[in-house]
């Protein structure tokens, strides 16, 4: 089976969807001839033609508006927002239009667009190339939000997102585009080679939206993570030496509430890990849900390990980033409670 990094897996998903469905088209800043600043659309214009994968003006709101109109016509646009930090100018289009069109028109119109956008820190991108904005999307009724953590899921989730008839935001953890990253920034870089999830089948397959993956089974504590943090969680669990069960949520909306509930009911403990700032982050929702549904099973407080409530500072990237050490502390605290 071909071995791919995440960029290649995403590219492959797009390539195959362009080939299979003439109603799929791709646009965004620098995605055309050049193939995107992260190379995810590399070669697609040359292979599929100018109108299938093209550059846009620098106007994120305009990109989403255009995609919604195309979706209303009957196409399945896949757009790239160059960095998730720059999706904010399109926030109104996503919330007031994409997410609400089906409901308000009683199903006459809908917006089957897919928005791909690299997110997260750990690449010395400073405040505006590092943010994790998932929480402002997960609160929006009518939007789906997914986050892959490996090449296999990246391809499968992207295909499922494109085929979905509702708007899907796919947050791509750019720190792990080229290799898994466990938070140990001072250790040598790893590539995806040899990782089981880097084996990416050719042909169309789907990772269903709304299904978490159990990355590691365990009985002592449940760790909930997504994106880059899945790899950080593995390292932290290992270093803490606890028999943790690790769930890779993959899809935040729809959320796999059954898998989460089942796991925490089994372990009685829960630690939530995300890179976004803690206050008002998606971890708050997860914590509330777990508490509501597993109250009698909880042996210790649910902990959240997350970015601090500051912007992402360039010099202090690794102090902001919630790495394995912070998770280890939380896991120990939870276990010793």
């Amino acid at each position: 089976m071909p071995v791919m990094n995440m960029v290649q897996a995403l590219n492959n998903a797009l390539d195959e969807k362009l080939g299979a469905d003439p109603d799929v088209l791709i646009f965004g800043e620098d995605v055309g001839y050049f193939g995107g600043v992260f190379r995810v659309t590399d070669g697609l214009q040359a292979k599929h033609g100018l109108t299938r994968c093209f550059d846009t003006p620098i106007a994120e709101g305009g990109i989403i508006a255009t995609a919604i109109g195309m979706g209303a016509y009957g196409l399945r646009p896949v757009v790239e927002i160059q960095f998730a930090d720059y999706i904010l100018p399109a926030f109104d289009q996503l919330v007031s239009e994409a997410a609400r069109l089906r409901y308000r028109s009683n199903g006459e119109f809908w917006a089957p667009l897919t928005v791909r956008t690299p997110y997260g820190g750990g690449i010395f991108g400073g405040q505006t190339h590092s943010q994790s904005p998932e929480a402002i999307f997960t609160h929006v009724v009518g939007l789906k939000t997914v986050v892959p953590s490996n090449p296999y899921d990246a391809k499968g989730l992207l295909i499922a997102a494109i085929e979905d008839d509702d708007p899907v935001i796919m947050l791509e953890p750019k720190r792990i585009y080229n290799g898994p990253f466990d938070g140990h920034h001072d250790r040598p870089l790893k590539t995806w080679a040899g990782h089981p999830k880097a084996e990416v089948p050719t042909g169309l397959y789907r990772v269903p939206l709304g299904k978490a993956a159990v990355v590691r089974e365990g009985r002592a504590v449940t760790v909930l993570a997504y994106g880059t943090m899945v790899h950080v969680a593995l390292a932290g669990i290992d270093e803490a030496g606890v028999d943790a069960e690790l769930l890779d949520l993959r899809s935040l909306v729809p959320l796999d509430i059954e898998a989460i509930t089942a796991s925490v009911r089994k372990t009685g403990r829960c630690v939530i890990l995300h890179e976004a700032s803690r206050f008002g982050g998606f971890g708050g929702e997860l914590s509330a849900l777990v508490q509501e549904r597993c109250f009698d099973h909880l042996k210790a407080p649910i902990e959240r390990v997350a970015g601090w409530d500051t912007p992402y500072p360039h010099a202090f990237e690794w102090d902001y980033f919630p790495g394995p050490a912070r998770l280890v502390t939380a896991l120990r605290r939870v276990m010793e409670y």
Partner: protein
Amino acid sequence: MNNQPRLTLHIPEPPARPGDHPDFGGMKLPKAGETMRPDVDAAEPTMRDMPFGLIRVLDDGHHAVGPWDPHLEADVLHQGLRAMMLTRAFDDRLFRAHRQGKTSFYMKSTGEEAIAVAQSLMLDARDMCFPTYRVLGWLMARHYPLLDLVNQIFSNAGDPLRGRQLPILYSARAYGFYSISGNLGSRFGHAVGWAMASAYKGDDRIALAYVGEGTTAEGGFHEALTFASVYRAPVILCVTNNQWAISSFSGIAGANETTFAAKALAYGIPGLRVDGNDFLAVWAATQWAAERARLNLGATLIELFTYRASGHSTADDPAKYRPADEALQWPLGDPIERLKEHLIARGEWDEERHAALQSALEDEVRAAVRAGEAIGTLGKSKPELGSMFEDVFKEPDWRVIEQRREMGV
């Protein structure tokens, strides 16, 4: 720098406020027939003065004159007149229904009926309109069932949108009428995307979109025009300049500095400025823009110069911020009156037939309202309660399934 004046902040003000005498005398209005008509494939530099003219066909004697005369059959004019009159009759009746507590909200398009009616008739059934809340005429011209309108306004069991929307925020796909939302301007770019999709597919359908002059200030307006220009989208982008945005006069949107049609110059596309109260002028300008669009020549911006003769909505009292008789002073008259007089001048119409039509239309509206009332006014009848949990997504997820269960429906 020291002998220069101190800076001062300029805040534009309208020429007249309540108590003042409205005076449109300073308004420079080209005569009917005066503004030239370029070929649809004329080079952009040759069309740069179009935004500063005013396309008018009907002259003071109610005759169609000049290069923009579309030479329409009387039949089309009769259709247009009827749809405009029906729009006004419906508006008046439903506005009163709000006053009677039958619904929560209403907005009229009084004085602006020529715009949507002419454009709806001019374009094809397969084209798509991206409306504002002030273009009911589009649906009237295409014979959308009045009862469906009434039911939507009453949010009752017959509401085609199942109670989801504020009154008049219709959606009518089969009538080429995209879903309206309360958010101003946020669908302008959808029209461009829709038109680009049509071009992408090698289709021949084109799109038309509206915003009010106040809404041209939104960033999305500019983004839509940028995309329309860059990709030469087959779309007609219309600015309905009715002089007011709630209580703000058009100068707050920049009208003292240039015309709204001139915004086209920023994108290298043609900008037409049209007497929006002249059915024939609106038709002709739309036809010109549609032909350009269908010939792959790209987008056109049209400013429709008109006047919002009523208040902004049922929540508004315009006497608070403009002279009460300002509407009557509007130098470009009333669109229904003008088309009526034109038909009379052509010998195709008379006062009796007009009065008869008027009362027939009022009956039609009354019957529709009665039928809607029989189903129920707001709160007296509702769509099925469980339906509020549908269509969040195509398939419900566990959240709405659980919540629906919690509601017991």
